[in-house]
């Protein structure tokens, strides 16, 4: 098998006495959607924050495409092809939908020490932003202010902004959380359409989405990965059933 795009070994994060990440090993292979599931408080978002370099792990090492990124600031990791979406949407509220994506394109293109030209008149930026908005189905809302978007649209915009950085690995932090059934279906379709372009680490509670999308699933409980395997393996794993699926055996 080719080298994994993400390789995490022995990652540990402590908050005081709490072990939020407990010797986590996880890999994502190129072209793969690897789902990470687990009950609330299992440390899924903490793990993503450590992968992005927003939080510093106490132990362990993270490799992106064979390159160790420990100690690297977030901006460098993004330039190596890492991008995330936020569970609680984190967008630029005073900007329009298009501007939110265009600024990501601008930053990807390199430094922003340009003081004279009007950025709103750079058609290339706006056009590229429009293609990402098209991918997530927001092209009709490009001139709307972010503050006026519905929750579902904000989730879609999160994805468009992440895509604008041209990532090789997308870290998706509960992209379906708070979405209605129709919106969830739409998001599953979008993500499944992106499968060929980008590998994903998908943190999600929506089991329907996970089973529809994931190539492999890891189960995180109390900061520890208790099982990793294909969809069927995880579904039939008794330990996982008691720890996580439990009584919620029925799918949605």
């Amino acid at each position, binding site marked *: 098998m080719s080298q994994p795009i993400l390789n995490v070994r022995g990652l540990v994060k402590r908050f005081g006495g709490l072990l939020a990440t407990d010797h986590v090993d996880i890999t994502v292979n190129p072209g793969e959607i690897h789902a990470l599931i687990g009950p609330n408080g299992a440390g899924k978002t903490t793990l993503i924050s450590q992968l992005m370099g927003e939080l510093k792990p106490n132990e362990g090492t993270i490799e992106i495409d064979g390159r160790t990124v420990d100690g690297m600031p*977030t901006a460098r990791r993004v330039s190596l092809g890492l991008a995330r979406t936020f569970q609680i949407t984190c967008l630029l509220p005073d900007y329009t939908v298009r501007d939110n994506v265009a600024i990501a394109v*601008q*930053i990807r293109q390199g430094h922003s020490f340009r*003081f*004279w030209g009007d950025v709103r008149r750079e058609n290339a930026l706006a056009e590229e932003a429009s293609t990402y908005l098209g991918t997530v189905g927001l092209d009709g809302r490009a001139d709307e202010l972010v503050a006026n978007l519905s929750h579902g649209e904000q989730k879609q915009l999160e994805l468009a902004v992440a895509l604008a950085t041209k990532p090789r690995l997308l870290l998706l932090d509960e992209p379906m959380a708070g979405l209605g059934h129709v919106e969830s279906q739409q998001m599953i379709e979008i993500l499944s359409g992106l499968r060929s372009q980008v590998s994903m680490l998908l943190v999600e509670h929506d089991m329907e989405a996970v089973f529809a999308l994931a190539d492999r699933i890891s189960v995180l409980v109390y900061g520890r990965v208790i099982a990793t395997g294909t969809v069927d393996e995880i579904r039939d794993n008794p330990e996982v059933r008691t720890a996580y699926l439990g009584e919620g055996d029925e799918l949605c």
Partner: protein
Amino acid sequence: METSLKRPALLISVVIALIALPLIADATGYTALMSLATRVLIYGIAAASLNFVLGYGGMVSFGHAAFFGIGGYVVGILYQHYSLGEPLLGFIPGTNQLLITVPAAIVVSGLMAAVIGALSLRTGGVQFIMITLAFAQMLFFLFVSLKTYGGDDGLIIRRANELPGLNMRDKQTVYYVCLAITALFFVILWRIVNSRFGNVIVGLRQSEKRMAAIGLPAYRYKLMAFVISGMGCGLAGALMANFLRFASPDMLHWTKSGELMVMVILGGVGTLFGPLIGAAVFIVLETLLASWTENWQLGLGLILLFVVLYTQGGVQALGARLFGRRA
């Protein structure tokens, strides 16, 4: 469509009014108007510079008087060495040429902003406010104790800097020079605000977390914004020293930082011309209220309270709403 035409029209009429102002002052015999207007322009530059980090960038600096004062002292110190005929530090000749002193003031205050910013920007929030305040106070006490340059009493600049072909002893000429520099300053600021650089600065104010997640190394951009802002305040300080023919530690005092902040808030945080309007309101109010009572700050405080509580965005926003409603 209507508003897009209204704004330039308003801007042009304000510029015409400012150009005609000395004639009006002469005609009405109210000559103090011109010195009032000059101060408004100069403080407008300083407040707009502060607003670039405070309003656009979300970095609440409480030490911008430092750069204002440094700009003033650069003019004052260069003038003192010019009049005494002995070079500064033994090798920098003094000068009274505006074309040298003003750029020098901008460069020196920019360098100071780079040093202060590099240290302060490692923090954020309240710590940032306190550290910028602390640096400004350190510089204040430095200049108070610098007996060579007047110490407590400040530096008297016997004559305003010279500009080839112009008579800078004439108040009207000084006003027009300040007006031209102000216009140039606002054109540059307008371009920067709308540039790629301005785009990331405004983005940083809205969400630093988001900007990091799309790959922006925030520190260097914030530092650059801080330096630009310091340079603008240095420019204003240099003009003020020329206008008052005086540079003193008062220019660096923390109350001056506070005044600049009040101007920004009065006029409209995060708007291009808000701080200039704020400076005008502040100085006119100061003059009017001070002619009635010694405790003019009380009146100003009440008005500031009203503006903050009820205008939602300063005098500029209030004007826009009244104007918009009528139209």
